[in-house]
């Protein structure tokens, strides 16, 4: 298992947001996480790269104990790419600058090496010709692809996506999903929080349904979507399919 999270709890003050989540992800697997708003999907993803410190439990990624005090967290995070709903590109840098920053500062590449690798990453998301553009000069879909390039440039072993298409106009969603699909075809392990059912149906290996801080059920997309075991899963799927 390349990702192994066991017994994850997370409290925010009095709020008990994750109530003992176990999630194992195999190499090259694409796991889709769905669930109602506030069920803890984002918090779970953020516990995996320790953007959020779990209150209890263990997280291992690519053999590294993410929660051990001795772990060099900045080094470990290079292996876990993350893509956010709001892109979070650095507005004062060009697309290439965004992608090359961590290559230089974290991976220790020279500027020339970092630029070459950054350009290659932009090439993979189809945006090499936008390398010198600032984020504000790019469409939302292009910005999100730059954000993906920024993450994959570090050659992570796992990619986390937190609602990568939710902030996009409908006509721009396809370009981002296409990049995610090609990433999957290249063998990337991916954990995706999203409500893009069609994408889940034909790209996901497994769908995980979260409710109220727990994984309620999981299984192949067809099983979860057509034949959920729990009433709450059924209600949730019915609800998003009506949209």
């Amino acid at each position, binding site marked *: 298992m390349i990702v192994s999270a066991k017994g994850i709890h997370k409290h925010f003050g009095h709020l008990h947001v994750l109530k003992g989540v176990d999630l194992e992800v195999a190499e090259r697997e694409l796991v889709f996480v769905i669930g109602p708003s506030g069920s803890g999907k984002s918090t779970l993803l953020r516990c995996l*790269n320790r953007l959020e410190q779990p209150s209890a439990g263990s997280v291992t990624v690519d053999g590294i104990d993410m929660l051990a005090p001795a772990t060099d967290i*900045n080094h470990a995070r290079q292996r876990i790419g*993350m893509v*956010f709903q709001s892109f*979070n590109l650095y507005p*004062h840098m060009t697309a290439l600058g965004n992608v090359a920053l961590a290559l230089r500062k*974290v991976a220790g590449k020279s500027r020339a090496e970092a630029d070459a690798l950054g350009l290659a990453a932009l090439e993979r998301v189809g945006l090499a010709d936008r390398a010198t553009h600032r984020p504000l000069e790019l469409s939302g879909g292009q910005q999100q692809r730059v954000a993906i390039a*920024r993450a994959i440039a570090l050659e992570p072993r796992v990619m986390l996506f937190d609602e990568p298409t939710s902030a996009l106009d409908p006509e721009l969603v396809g370009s981002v999903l296409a990049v995610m699909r090609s990433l999957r075809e290249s063998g990337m392990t991916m954990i995706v929080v999203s409500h893009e059912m069609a994408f889940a149906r034909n790209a996901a290996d497994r769908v995980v349904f979260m409710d109220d801080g727990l994984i309620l059920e999981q299984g192949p997309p067809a099983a979860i979507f057509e034949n959920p075991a729990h009433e709450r899963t059924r209600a949730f799927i019915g609800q998003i399919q009506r949209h």
Partner: protein
Amino acid sequence: MSSWDRFTDTFFNAKVMAKYWPDILYGVGVTVELAVLIVVSGLLAGLALALIRALAIRPLNWLIIFIVDLFRSLPPLVIIVLIYFGLPAADISPSGFVSTWLSLALVLMAFAEEIFWAGITSIPKGQWEAARSTGLGFGQTLTNVILPQALRLTIPPLTNRTIAITKGTALGTVVAVSEILGMASSAMSNSYNPSPLMMGAAAYLVLFLPVVVAGRWIEKKFAWKR
């Protein structure tokens, strides 16, 4: 004598001006020196405090907030007088120049810290998270991602505040600093004529007008739509 002649003879008296312009020029030198020292040390100290505050160490932050609020609420003149007349009680006797420098630098530090801090906190949390998720450390994120954006936002308010506080160098007269106003007013009482004050005013214009205009230009250049 026409009233116009009387006016020029009083306020722009050629003889008095010829006699005292070297004094005024000396004052200009002192004012510039004082201003540069205040701006450099005040801004650096303000930035340093804001960066320490970003580390989010509770007791340290309370101390910073206390210091900053203190120096923002006291009138600069009071601080100058307290340092000049008060510190000797602790066996430190700073000169008028040093007292003025210290006081105004502390005031600028306090205002600059608040401005830098407001700039840092106005950067969305997502910027921190994106940078940290790629493995950048706290300091690397601060210097490469947060500060370049934050400083841009701080330039207009910082320019205004810096100009306002630098003009406070005139308060140095109270503790016998030979800056422009001090030189002008002693020349005025020696010559029984206000012309030196006019020269002083002209000197302030020559010094500060370009800075004010430059400030306006910088504000335009860095005004930033997001």
